[in-house]
């Protein structure tokens, strides 16, 4: 029966109208992903309204095409402009931009796009086969685990991005959590740091903060230079060589895809964490971790495979529990409901073909994305190769629109500007902005789960130490903090000194 569903889904996607829909929507998603400030969530949200009158299958194909395209497209501006098109591709910029600076932008984009495609296809395998098993694992997470997971994500991000000064990265993460505290708290609806401002009481929106932190500093900095030198080149390269290189990095891609799927399944933890965790794991497994951040291709492959495989991972809890794994998946859930599906435990009996359709549409979307992204990269480069003094004022207009469209609220445009200044200050002080953004994303999850857990335990932290998954998280967190603060190095040095004294 499963084969029948798969075959039918393939036939559906190959009908001329659906195939055209797939190509157009994936291209639109890629464009949204490429343009800094236009996120995957926004792309899926914009399209959800447009697909209201579409035939159901065409609507599903277009939504998944846009989702895959937008997540993958972010890598192109991350590599060529050092501005991640979406938060998911922030980790890609770490190694992608240095490679582009060496004049190998084409190679970087090929590797990133191919890794994205492979990551998505691997996640499809998980969607089709492991949905029930992996969902049961995510179900074991309680408030304590979610709280520790948020801390873990921010600490990792801080340690990775601060280039040897993890403390600065962690401060940046704490600042992000602080921003997430602004407004009505979700547990008691108590206004915090809102100073009587109604807009601030409604919480600070993520997208304007993201656009401000990553887009604004690049725009303002471009005013300083000549406007022409900082645009990176898309070098000519042979696909054969690129495929060989992908083959060499296949272990990293496979590992990152598995990590991405795992992260995607956990509700609320999105593609950005998947990218960072995969990057971190690959860096740690690497024989030369020092080369990461300076243009190591493994970094790009890991980050892109990790964030794209999150797509499938994030859809797994949507299908089985009606709980979104990420922000775009939350919009996708609403779109499924709008088109008459009821994701959750009853989906398998009500629409048994649905999971197979989603899997096949995702796979075709990723293949379409690969082909379109490689063709489009030549146009992207031409657009981004333009004089920055011409390009950047126009990009600022897109940033303004991007900030505005989330809630159709003028206040969000002002928020984007203010966080742009914050981003500029952080950049000047050599403080990474990525942990700040992750703090804003994970802050609400951290706050709500901590307080919910404490409320259930009457203010006691003891239950946290009684849960095996929590203990694993605590040990890893403690190990990471101590290693980043140089405690192990100091102990080793003290031991060596003691040995040499005893030896003498």
């Amino acid at each position, binding site marked *: 029966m499963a084969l029948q569903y798969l075959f039918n889904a393939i036939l559906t996607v190959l009908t001329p109208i659906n195939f055209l829909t797939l190509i157009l929507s994936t291209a639109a998603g890629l464009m949204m992903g490429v343009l800094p400030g236009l996120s995957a969530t926004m792309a899926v949200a*914009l399209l959800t*309204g*447009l697909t209201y009158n579409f035939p159901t299958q065409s609507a599903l194909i277009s939504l998944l095409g846009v989702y895959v395209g937008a997540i993958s497209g972010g890598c192109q501006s991350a590599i060529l402009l050092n501005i991640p098109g979406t938060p998911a591709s922030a980790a890609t910029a770490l190694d992608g931009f240095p490679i582009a600076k060496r004049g190998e932008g084409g190679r970087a984009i090929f590797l990133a796009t191919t890794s994205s495609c492979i990551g998505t296809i691997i996640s499809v395998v998980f969607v089709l086969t492991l949905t029930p098993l992996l969902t049961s694992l995510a179900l074991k997470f309680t408030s304590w685990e979610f709280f520790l997971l948020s801390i873990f994500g921010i600490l990792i991000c801080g340690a990775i991005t601060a280039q040897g*000064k993890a*403390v*600065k990265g*962690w*401060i940046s993460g*704490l*600042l992000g*959590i*602080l921003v997430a*505290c602004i407004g009505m*708290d979700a*547990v*008691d609806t*108590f206004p*915090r*740091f809102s100073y009587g401002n109604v807009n601030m009481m409604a919480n600070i929106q993520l997208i304007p903060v993201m656009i401000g932190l990553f887009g604004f500093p690049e*725009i*303002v*900095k471009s*005013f*300083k*230079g000549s*406007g022409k030198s900082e645009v990176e080149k898309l070098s000519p390269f042979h696909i054969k060589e690129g495929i060989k290189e992908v083959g060499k990095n296949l272990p990293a891609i496979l590992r990152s895809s598995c990590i991405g799927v795992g992260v995607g399944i956990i509700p609320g933890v999105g593609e950005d964490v998947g990218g960072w965790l995969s990057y971190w794991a690959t860096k740690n497994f690497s024989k030369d971790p020092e080369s990461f951040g300076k243009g190591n291709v493994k970094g790009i492959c890991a980050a892109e495979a990790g964030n794209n495989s999150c797509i499938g991972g994030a859809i797994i809890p949507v299908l089985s529990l009606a709980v979104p794994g990420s922000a775009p998946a939350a919009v996708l859930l609403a779109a499924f409901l709008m088109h008459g599906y009821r994701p959750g435990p009853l989906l398998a009996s009500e629409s048994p073909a649905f999971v197979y359709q989603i899997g096949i549409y995702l796979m075709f979307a990723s293949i379409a994305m690969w082909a379109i992204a490689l063709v489009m990269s030549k146009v992207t480069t031409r657009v981004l190769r333009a*004089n920055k*003094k*011409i390009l950047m*004022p*126009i990009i*600022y*207009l*897109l940033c*303004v*629109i991007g900030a*505005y*469209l989330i809630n*159709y609220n*003028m206040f969000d*445009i*002002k928020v*984007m*500007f203010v966080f742009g*200044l914050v981003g*500029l200050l952080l950049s*000047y*002080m*050599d*403080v990474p902005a990525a942990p700040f953004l992750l703090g804003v994303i994970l802050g609400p999850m*951290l*706050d709500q789960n*901590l*307080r919910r857990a*404490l*409320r259930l335990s009457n*203010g006691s932290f003891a239950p946290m130490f009684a849960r095996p998954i929590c203990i694993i998280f605590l040990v890893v967190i403690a190990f990471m903090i101590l290693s980043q*603060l140089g405690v192990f190095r100091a102990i080793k040095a003290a031991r060596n000194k003691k040995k040499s004294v005893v030896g003498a």
Partner: protein
Amino acid sequence: MDNKTKDTIFSILMLALGAYVVIEGINIFKKAAQPPYRITELSISPGFLPIIVGSGIILLSLILLVRTLVVNKVGFTGFGKIMSNFGISFVRAFKDPGVIKMIIGAAIMAVLTFILIDHVPFWICGTLYVIVTMFYLRATSWWKILLLSVLSMGAIYLLFQVAFKTILP
């Protein structure tokens, strides 16, 4: 500005911010303890996380400050030197033509964001913003600036208002 000065200034700024956040967190706790909320226990109070975050910022800033001063073997006089270095580089920055361009460019963006956008239709103020910024930065010839501004705003209008059927600011 060198790394030593940057880290010192950043940690001092963060110490001040951390202290403010802790005080504000305590105020939130006190307010939440009153009616109608009556949350008297700190660990479940809305002020708990700000206090933790503020304390974390203070602790990490202290670590950064002490590390910067200890690693660079900076004494009390050295600390004074760092502060005076900061003052000098701050004043010097405002004489740099590149920095002035950045400030004026950001000011034009601020005018669009905080004043024009609330009173003038987006397609007018957006086009004006692009023209003024490109003229100020001397991006290209005047006729190209005018053409590019109108074309870019037209493309934005077509994409968002016509294709995506969204409402522009």
